[in-house]
């Protein structure tokens, strides 16, 4: 069963502003990155998934349940971490997360236990009885994550979880999200406008722009075809290119580099042999894993 499935999902506000346009995706469980610039429609999609706003057209299913018809059943299985500040300053984290656990339908003692657990998992166990107003931004983000975890959801929707964090805080938050997705057995949708950030931890990626689907696929599928070897020699680049073509490879000249698709195990050896035969000074030979960003780059520049 798909985690999330949308079919021609469209949302327009007031008939004018189109937030989502004919979005059709099918997402398997795992860690899913939802990337797009600010205003691309990420938050709108999340609100529709939670059944908070109805779509203007199209179908949506979460765990096979239609959130427009049965939002309570969807929300019981989903934890949501909003992008903006959502914490009262004058209560302790333990108290607040417990209260929200009860709002999710947990009995009193279970809510208290799960709140402690959730706060421990996000690394706030020692500080949980302090008032939230005294917390740092990073700690507040962790409280928001803990409240999304307290009722043991099957899916977490995280809206910009690294917002406002310094680099170390970002890394810690991403590691935590990755751990939740891999060790806790909870699927996670991470919204971000920073592609480089989510590609590190995600299994699959949904890229949207202007409410339209740019691409949705597994990260491995996006990167596997694009592994190349970069060869750099101090001189005789053309000779080497010709020699490699003669060997049945398809080198591409990229400035001073030759990019050779890595499609066989012996590609390495053949390049090395060609370089040795021509007696060229080899500067470097390394494998390049295309970053996912490069897959989007042509499209992005074309649209700008």
């Amino acid at each position, binding site marked *: 069963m798909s985690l999330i499935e949308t079919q021609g999902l469209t949302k327009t506000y007031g008939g004018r502003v189109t937030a989502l346009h004919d979005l059709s995706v099918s997402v398997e469980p795992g860690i899913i990155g939802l990337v797009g610039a600010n205003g691309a429609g990420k938050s709108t999609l999340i609100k529709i998934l939670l059944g908070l706003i109805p779509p203007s057209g199209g179908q949506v299913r979460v765990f096979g349940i239609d959130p427009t018809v049965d939002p309570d059943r969807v929300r019981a299985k989903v934890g949501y971490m909003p992008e903006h500040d*959502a914490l009262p300053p004058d209560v302790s984290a333990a108290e607040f997360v417990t209260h929200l656990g009860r709002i*999710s339908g947990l009995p009193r003692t279970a809510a208290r236990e799960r709140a402690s657990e959730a706060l421990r998992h996000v690394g706030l166990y020692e500080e949980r009885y302090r008032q939230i107003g005294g917390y740092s931004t990073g700690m507040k983000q962790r409280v928001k994550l803990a409240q999304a975890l307290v009722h043991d959801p099957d899916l977490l929707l995280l809206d910009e979880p690294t917002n406002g964090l310094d680099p170390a805080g970002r890394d810690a938050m991403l590691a935590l999200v990755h751990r939740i997705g891999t060790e806790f057995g909870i699927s996670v949708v991470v919204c971000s406008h920073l592609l480089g950030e989510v590609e590190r931890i995600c299994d699959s990626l949904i890229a949207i722009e202007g409410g339209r689907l740019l691409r949705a696929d597994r990260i491995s599928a996006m990167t596997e075809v694009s592994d190349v070897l970069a060869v750099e020699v101090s001189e005789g680049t053309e000779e080497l290119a010709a020699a490699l073509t003669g060997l049945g490879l398809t080198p591409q000249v990229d400035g001073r580099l030759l990019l050779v698709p890595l499609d066989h195990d012996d590609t390495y050896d053949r390049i090395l042999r060609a370089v040795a035969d021509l007696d060229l000074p080899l500067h470097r030979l390394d494998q390049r894993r295309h970053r996912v960003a490069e897959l989007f780059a042509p499209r992005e520049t074309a649209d700008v």
Partner: protein
Amino acid sequence: MSEASVIHDIGYQRYTGPRLGRGAVFGAIFVHGLRAAYGLGRSAKAKIFPWLVVGIVTLVAVILAAVRSQTGVVPLNYIQFADAMSWLIIFFVAIVAPELVSRDLRAGVLPLYFSRPLRAADYIGAKVAAMVAAVWGLLAVPQLIMFLGAAFTTKKGMSDVWHELGDLLPGWGYSLLWALLFTGIGLLIASLTGKRAFAAGGIVAVFLMTTPVVGVLSILPSTDAQEMAGLASPMTLVSGVGQWLVPSANTGLMIGNFGPVYAIEAATLIAACLLLLLARYRRVAAL
């Protein structure tokens, strides 16, 4: 990091216990709201005002009960007592209503509520119920003290107690009317702003500004105008309904034959406030 400070990670555990329905969630918000109204589970600062009001109101009730048991004179009956406490109730409402709703608006907590199995009607319904209970308790408990004072010092035994109970129950009903109307108005105003001071000021202003209107209307030469003057302010409106339903209450308000008008206005006002609140939170719930 030393060995001893390493926390042993027992891993994530799934929750397999019961998940309660919307009724239990409503109950949780209700209890939370009722506690918050009296500053329970909050800082000492949050407790000062509600308990100051509780203290004054209770003290008045104890004095009334003592005077009655010693001298046999009834300085204020149950309904007059509620009227006499009106300004204290308004201040209580002005503090509690922002505590219940403005606080959530200001902190931006609502998306966390409405991403859970909960509807706008559940949230605001539980808040209204909590505040009605808080305001009603503020009046009903002192009224109970007055009743107990009277019941334990009665000279004629059970018949007097029954008679007294017959006075108390309408008094409680009257307090409920106060609680409903003032909760409706108070929460509606407070739900419009996240700033607590604005909300409190707005609530007091509504009651402050309508009182002089009643004063002006009540000195007009027309008796109809005088008898309908009470309709202009929530406080006199409640008194008018009390006077109509319990003519022996002697609220001091002349309502003539306009009793039903008072009742209809009160009912309409309460219903309108609650519907507006619901409409407001339906919109807020969509984030």
